[in-house]
C-alpha cells in the first residue's frame, strides 16, 4: 500500500502502525508530533493506529525560528 508521508508517496507493508513506521525511520515519538489525515494522534495511540492505503501522514518537529 502507499501513503503520503510528509508530502511524498511512500510504500508500506499493509497493516503497519504509525509507531512501527516511526521505528523504521528511527524517529523518537517524544520528539515529533504526528498528524494522521489531519488529526493529531496522541503518543499513546501511535501503536494502535494502523495505516491504510491513501492515508496522509505529517510528522512534525521543532526547528529554529523567530
Amino acid at each position, binding site marked *: 500500500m502507499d501513503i503520503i508521508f*510528509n*508530502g511524498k508517496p511512500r510504500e508500506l507493508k499493509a497493516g503497519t502502525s504509525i509507531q512501527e513506521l516511526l521505528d523504521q*525511520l*528511527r*524517529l523518537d515519538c517524544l*520528539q*515529533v*508530533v504526528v*498528524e494522521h489525515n*489531519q488529526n*493529531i494522534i*496522541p503518543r499513546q495511540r501511535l501503536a494502535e493506529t494502523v495505516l491504510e492505503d491513501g492515508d496522509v501522514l*505529517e*510528522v*512534525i*518537529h*521543532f*526547528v*529554529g*525560528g*523567530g
Partner: protein
Amino acid sequence: MDQLIIADRSFKSRLMVGTGKFASNEAMVAAMEGSGSEIVTVALRRVDVDNPRDSMLEHIDPARYLLLPNTSGARDAEEAIRLARIARAAGCDPWVKLEVTPDPYYLLPDPIETLKAAEVLVKEGFIVLPYINADPVLAKHLQEAGTATVMPLGAPIGTNKGVRTRDNIAIIIEQANVPVVVDAGLGAPSHAAEAMEMGADAVLVNTALAVARDPGAMGAAFKKGVEAGREAYLAGLGKQQDKAQASSPLTGFLRK
C-alpha cells in the same frame, strides 16, 4: 529591573530571542545565554528523514526557558490554528506566537486571518501573542479578543532596519492594556533601546543575533540595550523641544 508579566507569568528579562538562522546549535545557545532571555521562540516543520539532525530542543533547558512556538509558515487562520494545536500536542505550554504571513517577499502579517485565528485559539485556551503590523486599531481588536500581548513589527522580519513604525507603535503603547512586544526588524541594541524608551514592555530579536560574528556577545549587547531603554523609560525622559534650553546658567561675567 521591574518584572515583565504576561498572562500571570512573570519574567525578569524583557528580551525574547528567536532561534532561527543560527550557524549552529552552539551559536544559538550562546546567544540565548548572552541575552539573559527567558522566552525563546521555535518553529514547527516536517521531519526530514533523509537528512536526520539532532533535535534543537535538546539544547534548550525547559527549566530555564519558556518555549514559545510560532506559527510561521501559516498563510491563513486555518493553517495557523493547525500549527498551534500541533505545538500543544508536542507537550508545550499552550503559548503561541501567532504569525500569519501569506506574502513570502515582505512577510507582512495578514491582519484579518490573524484576528480570526486569535479568536479561535483564545477560546481553545491558548495564550496568544500575535505578530502584527503596527496597526493600533488591529491591536485593540486583538486585545478585545483576549490575546496576552500584541507584537507589532518595527520593520519587516530580518531587515535590521529598526523601529520604522515608531509613531504607530507609540499609539499602540498608549492604548494597550496588554504588554506590547516590539518584534521584527530590530537590528542593533540601539533599536531595542529605542523601543524600550518609548515604553514597549519587551522586544523580540532573532536575525541580529543569528548573523552576528559573535552571537553570544551580541546577545549580551542587546540585553544592555533593553535594560538601558527600560530604565530610561521608568526614570522619565525629557520632552523634545525646538528651541535650545541652556544647561548652564546664563548669568555670566564676561559681558555686561
